[in-house]
């Protein structure tokens, strides 16, 4: 059975996607993670003062920057821990729109992210006709929800991976997943 190539996608490629990325990687999935936002935004001292970085800025640099700014604050709100986790997974956040890699399944964690992803896929030139299953699970952007959602993402990815042909079974997979988790993801299919 061919191993599918999974992509975990959120807005800033820090919390939700990285949580799922880390978990899927631990379970030997072929996985990548991305963000679709314009910049990487991390919570700051207030809602109006986020910490903004460019995609590609390494997690290490982000962590050092935040430690320098207010170590206790970012320790308290879990940002530094999150960045440490991310550093163990990969070097830096990646932007979906800039990625040329082709995946079989992209899992998004917010409907808006899914829209961005689909819009990007629609705008791309279709050359290989390779299919991309885009699945969205709405997850709030906080550590707890991300931690809760990652196992569910793993479960869904496992189901898709186990299917002989996900195109044939996608609706059954969604039904089954809903029955197990109570969560009904939305999906669409794009082409490379």
């Amino acid at each position: 059975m061919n191993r599918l190539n999974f992509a975990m996608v959120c807005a800033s490629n820090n919390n939700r996607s990285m949580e799922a990325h880390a978990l899927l990687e631990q379970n030997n999935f072929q996985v990548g993670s991305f963000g679709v936002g314009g910049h990487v935004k991390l919570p700051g001292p207030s809602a109006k003062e986020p910490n903004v970085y460019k995609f590609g800025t390494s997690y290490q640099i982000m962590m050092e920057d935040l430690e320098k700014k207010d170590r206790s604050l970012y320790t308290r709100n879990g940002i530094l821990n999150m960045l440490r986790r991310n550093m163990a997974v990969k070097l830096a956040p990646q932007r979906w729109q800039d990625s040329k890699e082709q995946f079989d399944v992209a899992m998004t964690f917010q409907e808006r992210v899914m829209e961005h992803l689909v819009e990007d896929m629609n705008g791309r030139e279709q050359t290989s006709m390779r299919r991309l299953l885009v699945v969205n699970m709405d997850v709030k952007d906080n550590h707890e929800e991300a931690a809760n959602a990652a196992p569910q993402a793993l479960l869904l990815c496992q189901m898709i991976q186990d299917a002989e042909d996900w195109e044939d079974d996608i609706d059954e997979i969604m039904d089954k997943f809903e029955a197990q988790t109570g969560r009904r993801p939305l999906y669409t299919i794009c082409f490379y």
Partner: protein
Amino acid sequence: MKQEPEQDVSQHDLAVQLLNDCKLASEGPDKVDILKQLSEILLFRAQHLIEEFVPEIVELLTEPKPVPLYVVELMEALVKAKAHVTVIDHALICMQSLLSDAIVANVRKAAILASVTIFKAAFGVAAHAGTSGSSSEVVKMWKAMCSLKASIQALMTSPTASDSVKHMAMKFVEQAVLMYSAEEHPFLSAGSSMQMLQLVKIPRPHPFLSAAQVTQEAIADFGALLELLKPPQMQDPKGSTVILAMKAVVNIFQRRPRLLGRGMSALLTASTTKTVNASVQNNLKTCLLTMLKHPDPAAVPWRKKIADALTNMGEGEAAKTELRRFERQARKGRQPPGSAAPEPDAKRMKPDPETAGPAGPSSSVHATQQSAQPAGQQTTASAGIKLEDPDMTRVTTLADLARHAGYIARLHAQGDYDKLDQMLKTIPAGVLADAVFDNMARIPSPEAVGAHSGAQSSALFARMLKQGLGGRGPSPAPAATPPHSAFATPPQEQPPAKPSAKAQSPIPGPPAVKGEGQAQAMVASGQGQLVKRVVDPALAQRPKALGLEAAGGMRQLALQRIVQASRTPLRDFRAALLGRLAVKVGEKGSLGDDLLDHILSDFNSGGGYELAMHWLFSLFAQQIPVQAPSSAPEQLQQARASLSGTFSGFHPVLPDPQAPVSGSEALAGSGHMPSQALSTAQEPHASMDVVASQSQPGEHAQHSSKAGPSPMETDSPEQAPRPSDSKEAAAGPSSQDAPEASAHAASSKPAGKANEHPEVVKGQTAEDVQHKLEGQGGADQAQTVARREQGLPMQDTLAEAGGLEGEEAAVSSVADSNAPANSSRRPNSAPAAAERTKQAEPLLDDRPLDHPRQSGSEPEPVPRQPASTDAAAMVPHTGELAVSPAGLMDGIGDVAEDMPEAAMVSSEGPLAEQRSLALQDTLYETVLIAILEGLREMVPEDNGMQDILLDAPCLPHPAVLNFLGRLRKDDEARGSQALKCAAHIIKFRPANRMEALPVILDAAVGPQPQVRLQAILRIGSHLLPKPGLAPTIKAFAASRLKLLHQSPPPAAADQPPAAAELAAQPAKPPAEDADVTLEPDPTPAHADEYNPQEVRARAEARARQACSLYVSLVPRTTGMLQGLLQSYALADPISRKVLEQLGDSLAVALKSTNPELLAAVVGHPAGSEPLLLSMLVKLTEAPLKKDRDGNQTQDHPPPSELVVACKDAFHLGQDSNFLVPVMGALSSQEVLSLLPHLIPLETARLQQAFDRLMRNRPDRDDLAVDMLVKLVKLDGLPKGFSRPDQRECVARMVGLSAWFGAEHLAKAINQLAQMNPLPVMFMRLLIGIVQKRPRTLHVFMADKLAGLISQNIWTQPSHWKGWLILATQLAPASYPTLLQLPVSILHGGLTTYPGLKPKVPELVRYAQSAECKVVVPSQMIHMLDSQASSGSAGRPD
């Protein structure tokens, strides 16, 4: 790639060896590895071996897994590397075999995926076969390809196919549709797998392929995709297939917007289908949003529907956001909706630098075509003459259009329908409509047209135009390059014909097509080259002479087809066509009904309004005879001028002032628009240069004489009146020849517009704007711009309401209900009207929002031009448009606003009256009323009816008046609508003022309270100030007020009359004027009509109905107050009560210094005092404030004028009531001196008097004491005033605790008690205090009683009894005082006032108790005991 022979040999051998090894290998993966080596050789080292080895590779399909899968990949790669017939053919065989045999879905999917590439290659080879010569191999290959395509398409819905196979099949079909509907410019980057699709062109002639065939296949394939969006699939809980179908459809839409019309409705229908799959629903929303964002003009007509669908799906906010974005862009002028927009997915549009020329897409097209064509074809194409794009906005006549027929033919021949569409959009709709009707006989049959839609319609039309015009205009058409026109009807190649002999002839009339089968003609180019003109078979029919019946039938058919073609982007064009049709409507037949239905169903969004105007103006021009008095050219000038200003969007043209003309000709006589001799009267797009030329009648006459009648008239059985013989002679030999003559006139002055007619040049700017507006959205914009250009004010609806601020408070309180102050001021929320308004926005972002058709609000009118009293000399600042009150049409809205009222009213009447009478019982009147009746069905907030009434050329009465009257009586909403219409007629159509005025006047005395209020508001604030209207309004109001003089209705009786009494009562006496009546309340009479309350309420309502208007007019009109007072004096009690209620509001409106009011105070009619006093009291009821001490203060004391007037009134009539309102302004001395006159006042009035007197007065404490003292010791009573009255008065004063407190009373008692003798009313005062103020001052007064003992009070008989009464009432506080009396005196007192006896036992007990501090002699005790024992018999007398 060339290889060395040795290398070739070695490669060949190696390939053979590898192939053998592959076959001999036992395991599938080993075979694949070997095959990969083979593919390396074939693809990169020796491509020439591909043809040889490909059959061997195909045979490998029988090998075990995974060989077939790799074979598919290899075949695809081989086809890419060498797109040769043999290779493709084998690849096709391979794919077909896999599709039919393969069980494994992966292999099928791979085969379908590879088929896309193979299909592209096959299509390219097949397309080029037309140039390289036909071969049986190519034909065979193409058939195999078609078979493969059919197989794949069948898989989309095959029950045996897995979903994944279906998905790939859908993707294949999507790509096939895109390929078959290829654009002429590539939008993919070099190297793209799809690039080749975009470049495939089908050259002409082609042995077995045609653009039409390809198009049909594309449509069929697209239809198959759309089938997947229908309910059975949509409702399937498994949604992946539907999702992919949706995405495929949207992908096609994005890349081929011209297909929007074919499938968008299916997508929208899908949005209404309920599906249980949330993902499907979500994808549908995404797809619709994507389409909503699509910038292509073809998507514009769908936006609203898409937005609606999204709204229904809960995405309304996103839809609105997108719509707002488009609106913003349109406003900024960056990207007007519907105009040329950037191609979708611009980022993927990367034209090949080799094919994209510097001239943009157009040159890119040609370059692409040339690159795809063989050398010979390229030579032909390059031989074409390069023409500059003509400026079609300058086309004003069919002759102009004919000059560009060659260009049209070229575009058509090239299949450049996009450009053709754009060009058609820039041609004024009126010219296009003329062309259509002049070529009606050539319009293809419905069956032929039925196969086309959208862009095809314009293509067909262009071909028709080309056929009709191409042979006559000077056509410098180049040789056309045979194109690949994806959606063109397949042309039929015909041998060349000779050049047309009528190349220079003007336009209309049936074309002289020679021969029935002549489907192709040749048009002579300017350079003598022959241009192949391809004629659709449907267009090649021989024109037939149209009889009356045939013409009617054809028009009916045309109407249906035009109406049904609602998707065409050329909406103005449709409107113009329908406008032409409207002219042909007779009184018989159903064409008129159909048109009317169309107008009403499409009134706000589809140009129905414009069509209605077309129709009305045309009928007006036909039906009203206008005789231009030769002796009065000035009047004609005025009439002409008025026409230009009446409806600036509809610029009629006036005739030669020296010749008698018909109405039709009066409106149709453009020297520059010979073919529009009639159309100028019919359509709103007549050129501005004609209007501009009106200031120079001589030149205009010259043009008119050359113009001749319209070609339209030649086939019209309902022609307008013909010109006179003399004019005919000048115009030309016949109507058939007129076009030639006109064209000659036009062609003889090619540059004459600029050189010989400076006035035309002046008008050109306006014309340009006009045409530009027409091209983009309607007559409204053009009208607005024209108005602005003329310096004319816009029609404003609520400008009148804007001035209501000052009177609203007054008159709104006049209303008996809490109705909204002005419901007519509501914003125009009618969506239909908003839609119509929205059309104007793109170009009118800076327009003043005050036109009633463009704004629901009613802003202030724009500043007027300085008005001159000389109406004939009223020329706006442009100097081009003269306006006159004596216009040919009486609907001179804008003009009227600029005219002095007096001049307007005095001069407009007779002509308007004459025309109105002439239009009675005519088709014009019928149509106008029918339109109005139809609009009655719309929501009342819609402004359509008002627009029609304002812009119609004439309002025949009494039909319009009757209609408005009926409308007013419908309900309150309709009543408001009728009012609004009538008010606008009065404001903007002064000639119809007097006809419209009764509608508002009747409403002002009507039974509907809200409508009545609105009418009163309008009359008071806007109509009354207009000269000429005030007398009528006043007389009307007075006549209704007089209805109050009648005897009171039975309801006035306090007791309900018996039924017999009511039946026996005589009928209500008629009013003085028998015609003056009030409308009965439409609400049905209550069953309990003898219930006095019900009847009284109805009587009050009726009285209010009669007098409200008059009352509202009083503040604005001097002298009416006296009339009101007189009527009050004569009115019945119920009416009086109503008037008094209204009087409060009236007083506020009048204000206390109003001279009329002051005069009325002094000299009021007898019997009117209650009303007058009620008003004065209301006026002096100033709002109260509290000072720092919490006391109420009056900010504004009565003005001195009012005080003087009231004093005068008092002195004249000795009516102290008139002092009450001004008591606050009187000094203390005056008050004390006038006090005797105040005593007789009624209690309520006295209360009012003291309220005003004491409020806000610093010396009020002293004054209160003084007044009490003064009143008590008053000796000389006023005439007619008795002592009991004085007692009563004292008691009432004592009861006014607000102003006479305990302290005041005590002070007054002290002062009075010290007097000797005591005042007569002293004891009465004390008794009154005890009675009115219980538990107040009892101890204090008991002490005073004791003090009076020392004064031997029993010696004063008048006070002694009072003393005893008071002692009785003060008991037991008075017991010590009583015990201080001498025994004999007390004994005598008991005799004098037996009422004291019941208190004796208690008095005895008190005297014997320890509480008693008084030394009581024993005789007193004995006397009291004896009185007590015998007192049981004593009763107070």
